[in-house]
């Protein structure tokens, strides 16, 4: 028996509503930065040994002279080359300059294949190199680029890629000497590292490279295929499933998603606990970021009062004018009808006064009447209609009392009447039937109303007489209705599942119906063998209701249980003091308590009519979910270990007997754009601390500028003495083979 020492507070009542969001973020504009300048000074001042340093990165290409402090060119590795139809000439744009035009942006191609850090599109690479050389002021005075080039390449670059790159540089641009290096190692060197573990988490991949005494242990290095680009793709997928239909049709493009990742995401220190607390009501408005997509406001034209009045008057005027016109037309018609009537009456007189039958007939034919009876009837009709109209419009004549409908002919048996009489009799019978039916319907309606009124009265009387038991009764009815709703839903769900009891019973029924010897069906005498007698008994048809599985018909068919429930609850609310707003079904579907609502719309009410709110999305869980993948790649389905596990594997297993291992642990160095996420460094430190032995000293630091340090490192290295032998001259390259590089401490190994 549970024994509570403290009262348990159940969640009751709505959570307190929050004020509207304080800051709504907008998605970014395309990153057009204007044209990068061309500066020829440095070229003219440079010596033949000043190298051009190019950091060929997947997020952006950074290029400049070796003597610069920072790269003067930074642009994304994109190129758009197409023929413009209107101007009928070829156009080529590079880098962020493509964003100035929509067509250019659509035609842009990336150097890298999406998802990999190996150069793929060489035309774009050539375009990029052209751009770099133009902007650096190379004028080709010695038939080509006459400065050595330092270029970065990914760790363990494939031979083919290096071959084609070297070919482009040596053959096409006539570069005198080229040196390759790994960007993260340049960054490490620039930040004064000698022994440590380089964790380079960049745009397309994450590398972990142990370095001992400035020599990288490339064979122990590991690459995890996750970077900022993958984060953007993951966020796009999450948003697509979260807000169905909102992100389709190219409303949001990749640069905007990358921007969102950069501005809203951060690395959580303790993922599981933070996740559990994230969607809690308290403090949700701080954690939930609202991003507004461009939208079109639905046209709600607010007219001023004057305008409304004016519009009304115009309408009224128009109405009045129309009415007048109509009245005039009717008057005209009336006058015409009366004239016709007078004419016909004249004809009738003539006919009556005509002596011979032939004359009569002639006169009648003139007016297209069959005989006198027809003429008579027509005249009577016209008189009636003229009278009615006159009454309505002009109000001259009084209304004649309605003749009671008589059906004299019905009493005369058929034999006594002639042909016309029979027809007339039939017409009268129809009329009578109609009239009777209508009267019956009216009577029934009134009877029904009376019955309802009587019931209601009875109910009220009962309530006043014995309120408690009435309330009990209503409550029981409410519970019964709720139970019935639940049962109906469960039945519907069960029928979908093939192995459930309901489904199997249904199958049994169907099989029984289709079999040759159905149960409970005795054949009556006098029927043939095929006839199984289905339908002779009225109860047979109820089988359709049991077996039918239509979902559409069920709901509004017999009992609208939802409406019933509402009616009962309304009654209870009125008369029962204990039944408060809380307990109604409506309150139980309260959005403030709903986790899914907090997930989708934050702690704010959602108005599905408002175009503004329908085009918003809320980033709450995604803020920590997206960067977490580098620690747990299985979240996004990447079948690799996370960086903590990789680091642990390198340090504790592969290099466990290495003498420099403890020194490596003292300097764990973070570089690359991914490490810019808030909380990345602390998280890595805490996680590593947990898996390393207690007595080992652990140091984690970050590059001073994780994005640019690779270029700066390469630039500084290019001027050092040990860089000299690393350059491969053109002649040497031609001799030693296309894939040849000179190994050095900041580059790949030649294999």
């Amino acid at each position, binding site marked *: 028996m549970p024994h509570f020492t403290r009262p348990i507070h159940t969640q009751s009542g709505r959570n307190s509503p929050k004020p509207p969001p304080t800051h709504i973020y907008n998605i970014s504009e395309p990153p057009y930065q204007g044209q990068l300048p061309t500066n020829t000074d440095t070229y003219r001042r440079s010596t033949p040994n000043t190298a051009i340093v190019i950091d060929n990165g997947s997020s952006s290409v950074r290029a400049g002279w070796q003597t610069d402090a920072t790269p003067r060119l930074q642009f994304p590795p994109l190129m758009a080359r197409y023929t413009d139809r209107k101007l009928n000439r070829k156009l080529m744009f590079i880098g962020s300059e493509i964003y100035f035009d929509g*067509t250019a942006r659509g035609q842009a191609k990336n150097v890298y294949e999406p998802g990999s850090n190996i150069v793929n599109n060489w035309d774009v690479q050539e375009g990029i190199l*052209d751009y770099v050389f133009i902007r650096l002021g190379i004028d080709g005075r010695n038939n080509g680029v006459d400065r050595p080039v330092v270029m970065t390449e990914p760790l363990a670059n494939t031979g083919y890629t290096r071959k084609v790159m070297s070919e482009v540089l040596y053959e096409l641009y006539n570069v005198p000497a080229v040196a390759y290096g790994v960007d993260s190692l340049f960054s490490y060197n620039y930040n004064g590292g000698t022994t440590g573990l380089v964790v380079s988490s960049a745009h397309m991949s994450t590398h972990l490279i142990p370095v001992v005494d400035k020599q990288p242990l490339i064979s122990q290095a*590991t690459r995890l295929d996750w970077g900022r680009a993958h984060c953007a793709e993951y966020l796009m997928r*999450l948003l697509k499933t979260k807000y169905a239909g909102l992100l389709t049709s190219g409303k949001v493009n990749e640069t905007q998603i990358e921007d969102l990742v950069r501005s809203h995401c951060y690395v959580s220190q303790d993922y599981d606990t933070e996740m559990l607390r994230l969607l809690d009501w308290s403090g949700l408005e701080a954690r939930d970021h609202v991003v507004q997509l461009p939208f079109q406001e639905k046209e709600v034209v607010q007219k001023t009062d004057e305008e409304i009045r004016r519009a009304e008057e115009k309408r009224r005027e128009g109405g009045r004018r129309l009415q007048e016109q109509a009245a005039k037309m009717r008057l005209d018609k009336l006058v015409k009808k009366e004239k016709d009537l007078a004419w016909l009456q004249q004809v009738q007189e003539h006919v009556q006064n005509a002596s011979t039958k032939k004359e009569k007939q002639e006169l009648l034919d003139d007016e297209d009447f069959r005989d006198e009876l027809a003429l008579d009837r027509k005249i009577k009709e016209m008189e009636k209609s003229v009278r009615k109209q006159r009454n309505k419009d002009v109000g001259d004549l009084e209304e004649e009392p309605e003749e009671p409908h008589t059906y004299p002919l019905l009493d005369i048996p058929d034999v006594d009447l002639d042909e016309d009489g029979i027809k007339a009799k039939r017409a009268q019978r129809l009329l009578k039937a109609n009239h009777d039916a209508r009267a019956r319907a009216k009577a029934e309606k009134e009877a029904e109303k009376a019955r309802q009124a009587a019931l209601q009265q009875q109910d009220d009387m009962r309530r006043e007489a014995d309120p408690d038991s009435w309330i009990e009764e209503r409550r029981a009815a409410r519970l019964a209705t709720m139970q019935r709703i639940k049962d109906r839903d469960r039945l519907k769900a069960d029928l979908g599942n093939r192995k459930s009891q309901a489904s199997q019973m249904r199958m049994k029924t169907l099989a029984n119906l289709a079999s040759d010897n159905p149960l409970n069906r005795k054949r009556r005498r006098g029927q043939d063998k095929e006839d199984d007698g289905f339908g002779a008994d009225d109860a047979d048809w109820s089988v359709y209701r049991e077996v039918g599985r239509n979902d559409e018909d069920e709901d509004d068919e017999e009992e609208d249980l939802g409406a019933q429930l509402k009616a009962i609850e309304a009654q209870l609310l009125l008369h029962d003091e204990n039944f408060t707003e809380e307990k109604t079904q409506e309150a139980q579907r309260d959005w403030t308590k709903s*986790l899914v609502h907090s997930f989708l719309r934050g702690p704010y009410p959602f108005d599905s009519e408002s175009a503004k709110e329908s085009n918003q999305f809320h980033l709450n869980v995604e803020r920590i979910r997206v960067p977490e993948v580098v620690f747990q790649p299985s979240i996004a389905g990447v079948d690799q270990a996370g960086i903590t596990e990789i680091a642990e594997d390198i340090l504790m297993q592969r290099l466990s007997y290495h003498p420099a291992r403890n020194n490596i642990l003292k300097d764990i160095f973070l570089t690359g754009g991914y490490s810019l996420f808030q909380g990345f460094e602390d998280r890595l430190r805490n996680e590593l601390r947990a898996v390393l032995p207690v007595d080992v000293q652990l140091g984690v630091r970050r590059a001073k500028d994780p994005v640019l340090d690779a270029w700066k490192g390469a630039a500084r290295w290019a001027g050092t003495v040990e860089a000299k032998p690393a350059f491969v001259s053109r002649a040497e390259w031609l001799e030693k083979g296309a894939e040849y590089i000179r190994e050095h401490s900041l580059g790949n190994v*030649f294999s």
Partner: protein
Amino acid sequence: MAPITTASNEETHGALLDALDLQKVPKPFRKPDWKPPQRRNKNLKQILSEAQRAQQSIITTQQNSGASTPLPPTDGTITPASLNPNPAQANNDLSRVVLEKNIAAQQTSGVVASLTANVGGLAVTPSVTYTSIAAAPSLKPKKKYCDITGLPAKYTDPKSGLFYFNAEVYKVVKNLSTTQVQEYLAARGANTVLK
């Protein structure tokens, strides 16, 4: 060709186009008669498979050419060099060879692994390739997170295989269409791919 930035409008767009266009800028540093080789854009899969094939052909020629003495196995226990049961192919299996080479080199040199592996003086197999430095799958147990909300999930829907956090989320899961279910699973890499 609508201008899409605030930096330009209709009139200046044409001027900006001319200013930014690189096609008409002379590039004297290029060799004028350079013709790029055909079909040089290769994606990663192609590059790697070609490299693999090239290495295998070298190994085959090396092994049967008599130019180098084959090394005996270094330790008593004979672990198969490759998991491939076919002996002819097992000899040519590259991935194990790289690892074996590294371990052997470590044991012989003792301290620092040499950077290139040699067999009888000839550099045969690379010690480091693009694929060899890829990270291995994780050995830690995977944590389950709700596919809809991202919170830690304790329950799995038997019908669709989605993870969910609580009964409220389960109601949402029950009412998803097949395409939506596959989209959620695809975000996790667990969708069914029909080839």
